[in-house]
């Protein structure tokens, strides 16, 4: 149906060949003023000037692959936008090359473990691009706005659990008497655990002893926003044009032609400017991977992402292809409310009947790794995945899947079914890659289990809707980490959570997640997290398949680009010859 509608809509564009002539024609140049109040600049000139950088040598050209769709730090959710934002805005902390939080706008901080309260001392001289100083109030304003439900910030739900009072604010709920007393005792006047003590001192209280709190303060959602600038520009227009963003970071936006390119220039008054080598970053927004590849081969661009074929081609030419772990886990989500799929033996058999190693070597064709547990190795540098170990065998000895098949049939028998009764559709995204992936799973289930399934491709928005409404049987889905802790994956399947599309509900699991959240002893907490992993491996509301790694290449003159699961693309540490 959705394909049909999309097709008819497209056709509609082409079939309005009925009559002729004009009614009120939309005057394109009447643009900007239509809504809200964009302050200054309008759309770019059609003939954008493309002057080479004045300094010559210290500029690079890279491909972001898309227009950064949302450059308002409060609202953004896209990796592409965050890649740019991390260069132009600093939070209280920033991430170093190894994803560790180091001082950003906050020069130093004190921590009181008793009250879970941080006091941040802001850097003297930190300034916005309009010259005004970065103050503690800018953080208070940003967080107040971020946790207001009417703002519509998607990430608010993720971070609300960390800040005292934020969950209540976001869900318009009453604060518990205990928390209220706590806030009063700590000297907060309102109902939330953050306040500006003075211009350069910020106090924040956590809702639980969060070990990754300082990294979260480097995340774009928690970056400061100056109230005056934000309100002059207007909430709607904020972040939509180069003039409409307040920046305090290592770079400023010098040029932005929508859907084409953006130019970042080094901020000479940035506190760490002396250590930043790349003077200018030209960010191209090439969505066609072949075009990006051709541009790289012709020497027009210094860094691009690679697909499997391009990666193989360049490797065969003796070029050095680079990889990074983007931290995402890819897995089947099973609808555990559906007959057949409600049986954990069936789910386990479906998961293990897929030879994930073969999948990577023949379909994905890069250095991605097969999953033997849920939390991917990108978390905590792989140390957690190591502690968990392999929770299941992926390839039976001699490739004999009869045990998996027996498990499958046993599970079905428990539900009074046979393989012929289990009919479902696996839903996935549009495009070649998704189709190929699912065709592989389809074939594996047919061969190893004698099971016939159908594949249905749909737009991303449609897939998300089906998942949210729990209107699916099996879906190929992925999850990327928001912070460097196993919990960013492990709390996904708490009963009734909006992110849990599987209808899975296990009180033991829920209790462990709640316990681990408030456990401050690292060893004990690890034990709990490992126990959660084991429950997931046992019940398999999801079937982990692989952990994604990505290939990319840089020109010979560009080195030291940081690409990690938490900092997808960062050039502040890069060197250019």
């Amino acid at each position, binding site marked *: 149906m959705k394909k049909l509608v999309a097709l008819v809509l497209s056709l509609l564009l082409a079939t*309005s060949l009925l009559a*002729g002539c004009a*009614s009120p024609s939309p005057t394109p140049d009447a643009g900007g003023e*239509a809504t809200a109040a964009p302050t200054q600049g309008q759309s770019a000139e059609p003939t954008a000037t493309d002057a080479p950088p004045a300094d010559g040598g210290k500029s690079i050209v890279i491909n972001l692959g898309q227009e950064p*769709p949302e450059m308002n730090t409060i609202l953004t959710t896209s990796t592409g936008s965050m890649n740019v934002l991390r260069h132009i805005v600093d939070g209280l902390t920033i991430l170093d090359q190894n994803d560790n939080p180091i001082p950003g706008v906050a020069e130093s901080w004190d921590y009181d473990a008793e009250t879970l309260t941080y006091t941040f001392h802001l850097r003297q001289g930190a300034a916005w691009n309009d010259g005004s100083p970065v103050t503690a109030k800018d953080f208070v304003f940003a967080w107040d706005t971020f946790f207001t439900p*009417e703002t*519509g910030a998607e990430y608010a739900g993720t971070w609300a659990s960390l800040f005292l009072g934020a969950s209540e604010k976001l869900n318009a709920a009453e604060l518990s008497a205990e928390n209220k007393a706590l806030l009063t005792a700590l000297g907060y006047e309102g109902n939330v655990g953050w306040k500006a003590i003075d211009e350069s001192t910020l106090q924040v209280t956590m809702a639980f002893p969060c070990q990754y709190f300082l990294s979260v303060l480097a995340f774009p959602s928690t970056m400061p926003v100056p109230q005056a600038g934000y309100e002059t520009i207007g909430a709607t227009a904020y972040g939509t044009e180069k003039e409409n963003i307040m920046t305090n970071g290592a770079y400023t936006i010098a040029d932005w032609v929508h*859907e084409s390119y953006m130019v970042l220039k080094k901020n000479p008054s940035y506190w760490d400017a002396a250590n930043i080598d790349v003077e200018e970053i030209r960010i191209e927004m090439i969505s066609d991977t072949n075009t990006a590849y*051709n541009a790289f*081969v012709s020497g027009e661009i210094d860094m691009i992402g690679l697909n499997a074929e391009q990666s193989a081609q360049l490797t065969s030419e003796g070029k050095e292809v680079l990889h990074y772990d983007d931290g995402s886990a890819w897995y089947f989500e099973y609808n555990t409310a559906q007959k057949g799929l409600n049986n954990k033996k069936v789910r386990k058999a479906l998961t293990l009947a897929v030879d994930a190693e073969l999948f990577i070597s023949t379909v994905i064709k890069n250095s991605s790794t097969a999953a033997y547990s849920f939390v991917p190795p990108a978390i905590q540098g792989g140390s957690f995945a190591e502690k968990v170990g392999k929770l299941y065998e992926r390839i039976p000895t001699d490739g004999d899947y009869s045990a998996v098949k027996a498990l499958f049939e046993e599970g079905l028998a428990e539900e009074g079914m046979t393989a012929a009764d289990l009919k479902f559709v696996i839903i996935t995204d549009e495009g070649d890659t998704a189709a190929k992936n699912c065709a592989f799973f389809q074939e594996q289930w047919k061969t190893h289990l004698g099971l016939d399934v159908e594949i249905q491709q749909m737009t991303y928005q449609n897939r998300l809707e089906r998942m949210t409404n729990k209107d699916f049987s099996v879906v190929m889905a992925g999850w990327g980490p928001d912070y460097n802790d196993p919990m960013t994956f492990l709390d996904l399947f708490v009963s009734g959570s909006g992110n849990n599309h599987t209808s899975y509900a296990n009180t033991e699991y829920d209790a462990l997640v709640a316990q681990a959240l408030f456990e401050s002893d690292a060893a004990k907490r690890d034990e709990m997290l490992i126990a959660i992993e084991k429950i997931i491996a046992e019940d398999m509301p999801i079937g982990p398949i692989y952990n994604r790694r990505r290939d990319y290449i840089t020109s010979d003159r560009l080195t030291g680009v940081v690409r990690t699961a938490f900092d997808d693309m960062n050039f502040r540490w890069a060197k250019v010859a």
Partner: protein
Amino acid sequence: MALLSYILKRVGYAALTVFFLMVLTFLMMQLLPGNPFLGDKAISQVTMDALYAKYGLDKPLWEQFLIYMNNFLHGDLGLSIKYNRPVNSIIASSFPYSAELGIRALIFAACFGVGLGIIAAIKRNTAWDSAAMTLAVIGVSIPSFIMGALLQYLFAVRFKAWFGFGLPTMGWKDEATKVLPTLALCFGTMATVARLTRTSMLDVLGQDYIKTARAKGLTDSAIVGRHALRNAILPVVTILGPTAATLLTGTFVVESIFNIPGLGQFFVKSIRENDYTMIAGTTVFYGIFLVVATLVVDILYGFIDPRIKLTGSRRES
């Protein structure tokens, strides 16, 4: 006077067409599965409601449509849900690229297409004819995304490898960057125009008045230029209207291959992303453009071919 009333009538029809286009688009958008606000992270109902209210999607459909129509009549196409930028300003910033590319392609296609067609017709059944028509068949059958990729690979990548220089791979900056996208875009249209010109030229060249002209001893170029082409060009003009609308409002494939920030991509992306205001905005923009182009062509007929009377009845010739 007749022309004026004809134009007024057509304007009326046009307004009606655009109105129905808007109604249909508006209704069909509701059938699109998905929700523009869904992302990988689940959001609370409070937030979802706030987002629906922000874009006016919480109101009943008829009210949404009335608001949309009212804004439209005031020249406001709304706020793109995906980009948070006014649809007007998105169109205003991307349309100039598409239009420039389209105009270049159109001029190129029309000139070379007509030229090829004339040569093929005059030198009928010779090597000239075969060569021209082979080129046309290739042009019609190779889709622009193949043509674009081939041109890019050959003139940008291979040329640089072979000779150390070549055209730029992508972008829309100086003249050099505009060569390949224009070629890629015009090829199909050029081929169509060439075939059309040839057929219609052959038809005209067989007419009695051409024989008369020949008998009078006119030169070939005078016959073709003054007598044959004027009549033969009519079918070409007919298709140029809709073609212009298609080329000028942006072509997804060519713009994507050459990374040109034109309007084309929004026709595709907006539907994928459930960006309702953008879907409606691009559709209406294209619809109006097409309707105007068609009317302009119809009026041009009157000047090119006096036999055609716009008011309907045909004058005896």
